[in-house]
Every structure is written in C-alpha cells, then in structure tokens.
C-alpha cells in the first residue's frame, strides 16, 4: 500500500507541469504519464490499490482529470491537436483500469474459494429413511394387498383371541375330531361358565365374522397373526397367515385355480409358473386341495420359481364347505365360493431366501437391516412388487 501512494505522489508532481508544456513537450509528458499510470495499474495488487490508482487519475484532482480540464481553456486549433491525444490517454487508462479490476476480482474470488476448501471425503450421516427398515412380514402383506387389491379383493382382519365357535365349530371341525388336535391350540383359562377362549390357530375365523357382517358377493383376503403350540426351525408358536375368501353365486374350482395362479405369478414375479393341485382335506372346505408350486432348488441357499423340476407345497384351498356357509348364515344351494390359506412367513422365506423362521421374531437389528425393506420401497403393481 505505501508503495502505491508513493507512485501516485510522483505522478501528481509530473502532472502539475503538463498544462504549460508545448504540444511536443506535452506529448512527451503524456507518454510519461500514461506509462506511469499503466505501470501503476499493472502493479496494483488488490481492489483498494486499483481504486487508489483510479482516484489518482480520474478523481476530482486526478492527473487525467486535470489534463482533461485543460482542454476547455484551449483554442480550437490546440484542442484539435491535443484533444485526441488526451482523450486517447483517458480511454486507454480507463480500459486498463477496468481490465485490471476484473482480473483482481477473479484473483480475490479464487483466493477466497481456495481458503474455503473442505475435505469432501469426510463422511456425512446417512439419511434416516435409508437406515430405517420395514419388516419382511409387513412388506409381504403389502405385496399381497397390492396383488389382491388389483383383483378386486378387500383386506379383512379379526381378533387374535377367539372363541372355540369361530375357530373350530363354525368352521366344521367336529368336536373331538383329530383335525382339531392337529392344531395344537393355545388356550386361556376357562371362565365362570367353563368356556375357554383360545388364540386363533388360523385366520379362518374371519371368514365367519365377515359372512355375519356382509352379504355376498364377498372377496376378501385376511392377513394376520396365528398361533400354534409348536416350535422349531420351521414352526413358531406365533406365525402369520393370509387367507382368501370368495363367495358369490358362481365361484368355482376353475376360478380358484386362476386366482391362485395369478397370485403366484405376481408374487414371485415370474411370467409363468406351474402349479400342482392335489386333493387334500380341510374341515372347512369340500372339495379341498393342496397346492405345490414348481421351483428349482438345485442351487444351494436359493429357490427359483417358475423353473426347475422340484415341487414345493405353498398353500391349501378348496370350495367353502356347505356347513361353513350355513354357519355364516348363507344357503349353500344359493351361494358358493372358495377359500385358501397360506403362511406369510413361509412365502416370505421362500421368496427372499430367509432360512430360519425364528429370526423373524428376534428383532436383531443386523437381521432387520439385511432382510428388511427400505421404508420407501412400497410394493405396487405398476412399479414392481419388490425393488
């Protein structure tokens, strides 16, 4: 800064002589002034310095301003002679000032930016939406709802604690029948009347509860918790089932096959799948069928659907038993329909390759993080069920 001031002082001293110079002298003096100004401009190191040069030249008493003032006192001939010279000087100095100013601004910005540099490799915190997880059971229930919603089914639910009537009697389980025993029921203590509540062993009680509330046509799917007194790698005392029920005046086995094939294709996300329907037995359906699905299990730890030569049992189904329709207040000669049920945990395990059912209920965050789903992975038919 002091250097610049010295320069300016020097320049002013020169300029005070200019007015009295002859043209030739003046020209020589102008040349000196110009080169001195241009040198000052070039050496100005920052914006205040360049501003000082501008004031020294173009301020009220600036060297160039003073020079320009002399033009007014000149004769026309002198002005004609000196005018262009002085104006030329003014223009060139102005230009140089503008250019240097821009240059210095760029330098200043560059310096500031350099000073502001940070280490962008420093880690940032993960978005909570990327950390959170939806449990595979919820995800699969949403997938099921997306598929059946598209087929015109509503989702129905019912209580976990049930009466013997809804869980067994209304579903055509005769008293003492071995099929009842196969259900390994959890019971509560009997009440004063000797009646004991139980934990529903299947989602089927909701069939009756729905028929009691709603006249056909009925198209529902019923996901929910179910309970049986059983525990090993493939059985858990609490598990999840999804049940389906269609009741109208025409629904038949052929329709049932279609619905279940559509479901399996959509759920396992394969263009086609072979299914094997085997006659079987459930007290609440007649005829009853069990369904195996074609798959390939030749690769360890992996199941592929829609290909291969293995069969895997996946669900049970059948035409709603006339006694069940009657229990629901419907005339089996007027109404008919079909129902099916399958394990949500089981189809989730099959689709996503989770080996052990027990881990589902352990809430180990490593497991949840690995097998769980990101909160914004919402199953839709238009976007693909799974991400």
């Amino acid at each position, binding site marked *: 800064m002091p250097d610049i001031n010295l320069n300016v002082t020097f320049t002013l001293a020169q300029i005070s002589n200019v007015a009295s110079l002859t043209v030739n002298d003046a020209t020589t003096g102008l040349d000196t002034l110009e080169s001195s100004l241009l040198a000052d401009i070039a050496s100005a190191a920052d914006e205040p310095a360049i501003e000082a040069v501008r004031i020294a030249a173009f301020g009220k008493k600036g060297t160039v301003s003073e020079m320009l003032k002399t033009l007014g006192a000149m004769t026309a001939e002198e002005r004609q002679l000196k005018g262009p010279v002085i104006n030329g000087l003014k223009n060139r100095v102005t230009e140089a000032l503008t250019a240097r100013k821009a240059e210095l601004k760029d330098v200043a910005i560059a310096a500031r930016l350099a000073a502001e540099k940070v280490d962008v490799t420093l880690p940032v915190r993960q978005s909570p939406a990327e950390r*959170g997880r939806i*449990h595979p059971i919820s995800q699969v229930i949403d997938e099921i709802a997306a598929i059946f919603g598209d087929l015109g089914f509503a989702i129905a639910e019912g209580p976990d604690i049930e009466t013997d009537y809804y869980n067994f009697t209304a579903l055509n389980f005769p*008293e003492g029948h071995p099929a009842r*025993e196969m259900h390994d029921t959890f019971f509560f203590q009997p009440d004063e009347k000797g009646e004991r509540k139980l934990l529903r062993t299947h989602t089927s009680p909701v069939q009756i509860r729905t028929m009691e509330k709603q006249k056909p046509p009925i198209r529902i799917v019923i996901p929910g918790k179910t309970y049986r007194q059983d525990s090993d790698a493939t059985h858990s005392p609490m598990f999840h089932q999804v049940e389906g029920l269609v009741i109208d005046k025409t629904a038949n086995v*052929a329709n049932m096959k279609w619905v279940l094939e559509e479901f399996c294709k959509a759920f396992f996300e394969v263009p086609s799948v072979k299914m094997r329907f*085997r006659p079987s037995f459930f007290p609440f359906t007649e005829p009853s069928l069990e369904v195996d699905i074609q798959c390939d299990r030749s690769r360890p730890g992996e199941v592929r659907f829609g290909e291969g030569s293995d069969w895997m049992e996946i669900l049970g189904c059948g*035409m709603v038993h006339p006694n069940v329709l009657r229990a629901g207040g419907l005339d089996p000669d007027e109404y008919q329909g079909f129902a099916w049920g399958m394990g949500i945990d089981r189809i989730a395990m099959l689709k996503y390759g989770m080996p052990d059912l027990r881990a589902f209920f352990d*809430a180990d965050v490593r497991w949840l993080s690995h097998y769980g789903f990101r909160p914004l992975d*919402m199953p839709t038919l238009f976007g693909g069920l799974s991400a």
Partner: protein
Amino acid sequence: MKFTLSWLKDHLETDASLNEIVERLTSIGLEVEHVDDKSSLKPFVIAKVLTAVQHPDADRLRVLTVDTGDGKPPVQVVCGAPNARAGLIGAFAAPGTYVPGIDVTLTVGKIRGVESHGMMCSERELELSDEHNGIIDLPADAPVGTSFASYAHLDDPVIEINLTPNRPDATSVYGIARDLAASGLGRLVGGAIMPHVGEGLCPVKVTIEAPELCPGFALTMVRGVKNGPSPKWFQQRLIAIGLRPISALVDITNYVTFDRGRPLHVFDAAKVAGNLVVRPARDGEKVLALDGREYTLTPEMCVIADDNGVESIAGIMGGEHSGCDESTTDVLIESALWDPIATARTGRALGIITDARYRFERGVDPEFMVPGVELAAKLVLDFCGGTPTEMEVTGYAGHKPKIVSFPLSEVKRLTGIEVPKAESLDILTRLGFEPQGSGDIVKVKVPSWRPDVDGKADLVEEVMRIHGVDNIAPQPLGAHDAVNSKILTTLQIRTRTAKRALAVRGMMEAVTWSFIPAKHAELFGGGQTALKLANPIAADMSDMRPSLLPGLIAAAQRNADKGIGDVALFEVSGTYEGDGADQQRRVAAGVRRGTAKLDGSGRSWAGNSGPVGVFDAKADAIAALEACGAPVERLQIEAGGPAWYHPGRSGTIKLGPKTVLGTFGEFHPKTMEGLDVSGPLCGFEVFVDAVPEPKAKPTKTKPKLELSAFQAVKRDFAFVVDKAIEAGTLVRAALAADKKLITAVSVFDIFEGASLGADKKSIAIEVSIQPVEKTLTDEDFEALAKRIVENVGKQTGGVLRT
C-alpha cells in the same frame, strides 16, 4: 401310512411303474411323502472272500481275492475293513457301480501300488445304516453270486403317504389299491375272505356295558396253536414298514391292521379269567400295557376287562398280562368297534400313539369287523395251526348306510368342468359307492368304509379327484361391481402409513411375541387372569401383552447385549386389554436406546449424538400420529404418563379431555429394573385405533390458498415466568393474542439463573406475523406487541424480560 410295492400288488393288478403309481397316488389325494427305493442297490452282489493278506505297503489295508460267483477267476480287492478275512461273505460292488453312501462310481484303481477291482461294502456305504466299523458280514449260507438287495429284501420299494385325517379307508393297503384301481391304474384284487368255519361256541363270553363306546365286538378262539415266528416274507413286509416282528400271533394283528385298516387284538386265552366285559374304566384303575408302561385310567376311558381287571385299553393298546407269547396255545382274536372321539380322547389323555388308535379315531369300517376276525383266524390257522371256535358277535346292530341325494350338475357348479354323467357315476361305482336312479339327481349309497362322506360336496370331491384336478382349466374370476369399495380400511391404511413414517425416522420394524412374561405384563398394567395362557409354550411366554413396549425394550436390550447399543425399534401391532373381540387395540410403539437419534447415532466429526430422551420419543409419537391422520394442531400434551414412565419426563397426548392418543417418555427406574435393562432409553405408544375417522367429505377439492402480498415479519419476546409455568401455555397465550396476524410462535431459548430469581425462568419466543390487509406500521406493531405481552401476562403471570 407306509406300505411296500409288492404288498400293494397283492391288491392291485397293474403294469404301472413305481413312478406312475407314486404320481397317481399324489394326484388323487394320497400324497406320497417319501419313497424308499433301494433299486440303486441292484448291482451289488453277494461275494465271498477267498484269501486276505496284508497289503505290502500299508498297515491298515489288506489285499483280498474275492469270488463274485460269476464263474470267472477271483478278483483282487484292496480293503481297509478290520473284519475283512478269508471266508467272509459280504456285499461286493464291481467297477462301474455307483456307491450311494460315498457318492462315488467305482473304477479300477491302484491303492498304494496294488490294483483294486471293486469294493466290499459297509452298511453305511450302501446307506442302510450308519454302521461303518466293518464290511457287511453275511451268514455262511448266503448265496454267493446272487443279488444282495433281493437277499436282504431291499428290492421292494417302500412308499409312505401323508394321509389326511378324513380317509380312514386309506389306512389300509387294500383301500389304497381301491383308490388306484378307481383311477384306472389297475384292477382291485385279493379282497375275498373265506367265511369263518368254527367248531363249537367260543367259551369266552362278551358283555358290553358301554354300548355308546363300543357299538360292536367280535371274538373267536383258536385252540391248539403253535406260536412261533411268522414266515420270513411276512416278517419282511412288517420290517419294511418299520414294525418289529414279534411272533406269528402278534404279527398277524399288525399285518391285518395295515393290510385292511382293521386293528385287532389277541389275548392268550389261558390268561383270561372268566368272561370279558367292555366297560368304562374305574377311576384310578391301573393297567400295565404292552409297551411295558403302567397307565392310570379314568371313567371316560373304555376298557376290556376280565375277572382279574383291565386286560386292554379299548382301541389303543392291549394289556401285558393277557398278551400272547411263545407259550400261548389257545388264542382269542378280538375285532371290535370303538367310538372315534372317545378313542382319540383316551389316547390323547394317556399320551399313547398306536396304529390302532390312528385308525379307530378316524373311524374303521364297521362292516369289516367280522371279516377282520375271519382273515386273522385264517392266517393263524395257516401259520400256527389249531382249531377255531365259532365267532361270537356282540352288540353289532349292522351298518345303516348313508344315502346322499346327488344332483350330477353339482360337479360342474362347484368345479367348473363338465364331467359326463356316465363318468361321474362310473367313478363313484369304482370307489364302492352305489348310485341309484338314472335322472339328473341320483341317490348315492355311501360305502361303510367312507364315514367322511356326508353330502353332495363330498361326492363332487370324489369325482373331481379321480377325474383329475389337472383337467380343470383355470377360468378368470369376473370383475364385479359390488366389490368396488376401498381395499383397505382406515385402520389398515393408518397402520401401513404409521409403519412407513416410523421407518423413515430411522427406526427398524420389529415383530415381537404377542405373549410376554407375566412380570413384564404386570409392569405395563397387564397380567389379568383372562389374558393368561393355560398352556404357554414357555414360562416366559405366558401373558398376552398389554403394551408393545416391554417386548421392544427387551429386544433393544438383546441387541445391546450383542454389542449394538444404539438401537431404534418400532412395531405396529395388537395389544390386549381383555379377551373380547373388541378389546384388541392397534398400537404403534417405538423405543430408542443409547444415542439412536433421528439424525443418527454415535460420534461424528460434525457433532456427536447425545443420549436419547423424552423429546426424541415425543417427536416419534407425534410423527406417528401425524401419519395416522391425527389433527396435530389440536393435540394437547399433558405432563406425566402411565406408571411405567419417568413421572417428570413423560407426557400424554390427548385430543379433547377424554381421548388419549398416546404416551411418551423416558422410563421409570423401577420399570428398567423390572425388565432388567439399561439405558439411555425412551419410548412411545400411539393408539392408532383411537384416532378419529376422517369426516366423509363431499369433495376432494382443497380449500383455496390465500397468499398475502405483504412481507412477513418476525419479532422476539422473552418473558420471565414462574418455573412451574409450561412453555405450551405461554405459546398458546402468545398465539391467541391475534389469531389473524400471528401465524406461528416458536420457543428459541429457555434460561434459568440467579439473576431471575430462584423459582423463575425465562422463555424466549419468536412470533411470526403475517400482515393480511396492509403493511403494518410501527404503531400497529406496538399495539400487537402490547396485546401479546398482556395476554401472556394474563395467562402465565409472565412479564417481559428487560
């Protein structure tokens, strides 16, 4: 139900292959669970070791010469078995043979420089057992050069079907053959039984004192039998299906059980005192059963007794005392009918599972009670000799067949396929049904062995399964207008949204048990008798949960115990206030542990996460409520929550004076102690089902948005108030000062200090003001500020801090 292929062919004349039979069984509803087909053992032959010398180069190996019985010179085999010796007869595999137990196809190879042309095998190598201490060592009379499999009776494939409980008829090889024959896979044979011809009356009489438990009893005696082992082929069949041959008399009862689904019992007549009586057991009466165990009986159980006491638990297991053994000379053969439900109940109560119980509880063919004795008596005569008496039949009133009225159109109605009438009738006839009449509706007489068939739907199933389910082509389910309402209920939508909203806050969804330890339930207001399981699977899974919190807190601690202390978990599921259908609540709950805050946990260069606390839980609770559609602007937060929370660091969220929408907070030290967990820990519960249903709106159009053209401004105020004053009260007071102009009030500082006085605090607020009609003048602002200060003063006693 297990049987062998050769046994099946006793009753089914067929050219079908094993594969065809297996596939057909499954397709007609007799699901084949397992086929034990030892056909891979075919190439193994019986061979004799001629010489055995030490391997020149290996201590543990021997070099054998083996005669394989093919007339060629003996082959050289290197063998490592300790029992390999000259003279041993065993199972030999020639080069080229696949050995299943080691999963190798043999080649000629050199073992330590000595050529080996095959292998003498152990049982494990043939997958017959785990025995691998030496090679198979057969008796000296085993025929060298013949098939080992047929010598060891391993060439008869064993088929196991997974029988559904409705098919008692298929608990017999004969019944299975009948189904296969009906499906067109062969001809049913071998059913005829010679009528019983006996001499003289059976000396033992039978009285039925419990006719409701025993609708029939047939008995005969064969005198002068010689009870030794049953014939080899007979024993082999029993062994193949997993039964242990005992003696001819006992083996015969087992055989008839499986061959015809007719369980029988044999008594040693010499050990029966007096006559037999069928009666309910006396309370506390004891019997030593054939399994060597003593059972204590109750009056619900039916027994066969003599003068000595109980000789047999009806339909389940005979007694040890009167059982047959080698010394038996006079045998009583019993074939009775037992009530299925009573049999099941008794079996369950005593914990006895037998082949007899399996059949009686499903319902045996009443019409085969008498033929069962005839068949058994015939076999006794064949195997043991002797002279039969006449048969004594007690209590049997005969079978009254069910008649089902069957409109043939039902097949099409229920299945969707057209099966020609003649085919439907033919299928039923082949299964033993007797259709009568020729119109569209026929009367079908149900055979005595099909107690499961009651109505026309059952007959449709018979036609469908034999006609072939595969023949039913899928038909689209038509769309219909009536099912065009919402797919999800409001509660379901809210459940789903709450889950996603909490997951978006970095929490992981857990699914925890509905039943929790009684102690945990009690800590959270549960534990009532109505919600205790009578038969929990484990002592600590006994009570239906009153809250999702104990399960989630325990889960968070389990993770902490594995070294992951910063955990955020949530669950949206059911809790139980009582055992009624309307007492199951839908709750969203979550816990945060350690430093698992919304923005992340643990340390970071940009700022460490602090311990979680009441405000983390509050934010989660409000987010969940917001996702459920609760009117967030109208929620009231009250200090304090249920007893399991920290009383000074918890809150209750209400909508109006009565509706509790949720609670949140840190936990009471006693709760933490009771659950045996450590913190920092906070949590919340939101009652999804308590959020009011949205009002039905006539339009989805949103109200028009009015955007003010005037600049919004903010003004700060600080008030000194009593420490007890809640910030919420002050904020509400400020908001109320001008409902039109003031759009928001936020608290940006709380200060307590000596300068204010011991029981005072300062609350600093920022008031957002949105002029609506005109730009506000200084006077306007002053007037507004005055109203704010006045209203806050009135509501809280606060004064502007100076």
